[in-house]
């Protein structure tokens, strides 16, 4: 696509006899938030390094805002947050961020603002050696914000963050996306990614096995919705018999049904009248989807 910031076509790479990337194609448009999911060793980090120009591809090609990865232009428009950010212990947060601002050619006056934005303004003049893991991660995020990048690559950005920090992190990501930055988040922390991304791409053994919106992925996977029916009195046995569900903890029955069978199942249950006390619906979650696509059931 012409307006893609990131354009990956048929990326392939071998490391020794291992194929770490194979035929990966992926696009990112301005303002899109894309979750890149996969197990350890699925190729997420390698793909990010290829986009950064830190490693070369054997096959296929990547362009970043029309430029070659690693070229001056590509580096100028790209921001990166490595998985384990280790800054130099004896520098202060402000010094470290000032270095990055100088290298990026951005306005020095903004450094203090970014430190404040990620919530470490108070620690700005303390040495990074005294920072907690979460604070280092925040400093890492501050350097991502520098110079309003067009593409942000975040490798496991939530690792080491407490729930409140995670929430703030996603607020910052949303803000970046709202300003038109394409954000790629590599992660295996699935629960937050669910609500916070526009598209989900799943890598398995170097291949892209899924790249779509959550809704479409759910539809395509055809994973069953689970209905948990709580019975009145001793009706559980009867319900289980009639519906073919499995009994759980005495008073409830679990039913699995495909998305298109869901309404029919619900009508049948409501026809049972008093016997049914309550129905809980569990649509398939990202975890299930992830398991589905990363095991390769669909192929």
């Amino acid at each position, binding site marked *: 696509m012409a307006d893609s910031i990131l354009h990956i076509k048929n990326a392939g790479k071998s490391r020794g006899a291992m194929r770490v990337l194979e035929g990966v194609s992926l696009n990112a448009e301005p303002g899109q938030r894309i979750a890149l999911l996969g197990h350890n060793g699925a190729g997420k980090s390698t793909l990010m390094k290829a986009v950064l120009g*830190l490693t070369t591809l054997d096959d296929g090609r990547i362009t970043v805002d029309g430029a070659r990865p690693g070229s*001056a232009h590509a580096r100028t428009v*790209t921001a990166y947050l490595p998985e384990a950010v280790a800054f*130099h212990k004896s520098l202060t947060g402000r*010094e470290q961020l000032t270095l990055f601002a100088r*290298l*990026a050619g951005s306005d020095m006056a903004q450094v203090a603002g970014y430190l404040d934005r990620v919530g470490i303004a108070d620690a700005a003049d303390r040495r990074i050696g005294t920072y907690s893991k979460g604070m280092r991660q925040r400093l890492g995020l501050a350097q991502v914000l520098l110079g309003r990048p067009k593409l942000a690559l975040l490798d496991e950005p939530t690792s080491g963050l407490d729930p409140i920090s995670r929430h703030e992190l996603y607020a910052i990501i949303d803000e970046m996306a709202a300003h038109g930055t394409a954000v790629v988040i590599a992660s295996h922390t699935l629960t937050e990614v669910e609500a916070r991304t526009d598209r989900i791409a799943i890598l398995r053994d170097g291949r892209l096995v899924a790249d779509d919106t959550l809704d479409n992925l759910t539809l395509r996977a055809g994973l069953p919705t689970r209905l948990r029916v709580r019975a009145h009195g001793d009706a559980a046995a009867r319900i289980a018999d009639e519906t073919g569900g499995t009994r759980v903890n005495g008073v409830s029955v679990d039913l699995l049904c495909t998305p298109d069978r869901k309404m029919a199942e619900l009508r049948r249950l409501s026809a049972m009248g008093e016997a049914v006390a309550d129905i809980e619906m569990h649509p398939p979650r990202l975890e299930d989807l992830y398991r589905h696509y990363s095991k390769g059931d669909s192929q």
Partner: protein
Amino acid sequence: MIRRILAIARIEAIITRRNRWLLMATVIMVLFAVALTLAGSAPTGTLGVNMLTVSVASMTTLSVYLAPLLALMMAFDSIAGEAERGGLGLLLSYPVSRAEILLGKFLAHIAALAFAMVIGFGTAGALAALSGGADAASLAALLRLILTSILLGAAFLSLGYMLSALAGSATGAAGLSAGLWLVFVVLYDLGLLGAVVFDAGGWFTQKVFPWMMAANPADAFRLWNIAASDGVAMATGLAGAASALPIWVAPVSLLLWPVLGLLLARRFFGRLEP
């Protein structure tokens, strides 16, 4: 380009100061230089040279060992360590080239070394001049010693970066650096000495040996200081080797090594995948 080199250099200078490298290097230089000057004050009378000349001669021998050592200790971690900590990948995601990173680090480290040399040799030189006299020639020799020591440091800094880029790990780089120091500073000379003894004043000793000596930056440093000052040559007893070569050979060798080292470092750095 200059702006980015200076940005890296500024940060490296802060790190060198904070992790006490600057202080340590300076203290080491002062201690050794002063100790040698005080211990070496005996032969002034017999040689008929003033005390500063003797002091410079002994400090030349000291610098051959110490300048490469300090330089390698500063350099070995700078690429491998950063790669290990994961900071290199992040740094390279910015629009800064590997050459700019190298030059920035080099600038900060050479400044730190220069500071240590000036303070160390300056203190010892001043002490010698005050207690045993000095003249224009011996002052020039002191100045030459300081400048050539900085060049020698530059040569080994660049070689240290090369090993750091080559090694893949900071521990590996430390090991390689120790090996490099041993080869260039100790074993190389021993080898040459053995060859000269075996050759017994023949073709090798007269034609090849002086050039081989000049090819080693540590020996080129020695030759330059000796060839340029009669007093120092007399005090070190190495006048023979120095006079066998054209005067420009040792300076050219010592000036070329840092350039060569940086080019090699850049080459291996380019191959390193963070």
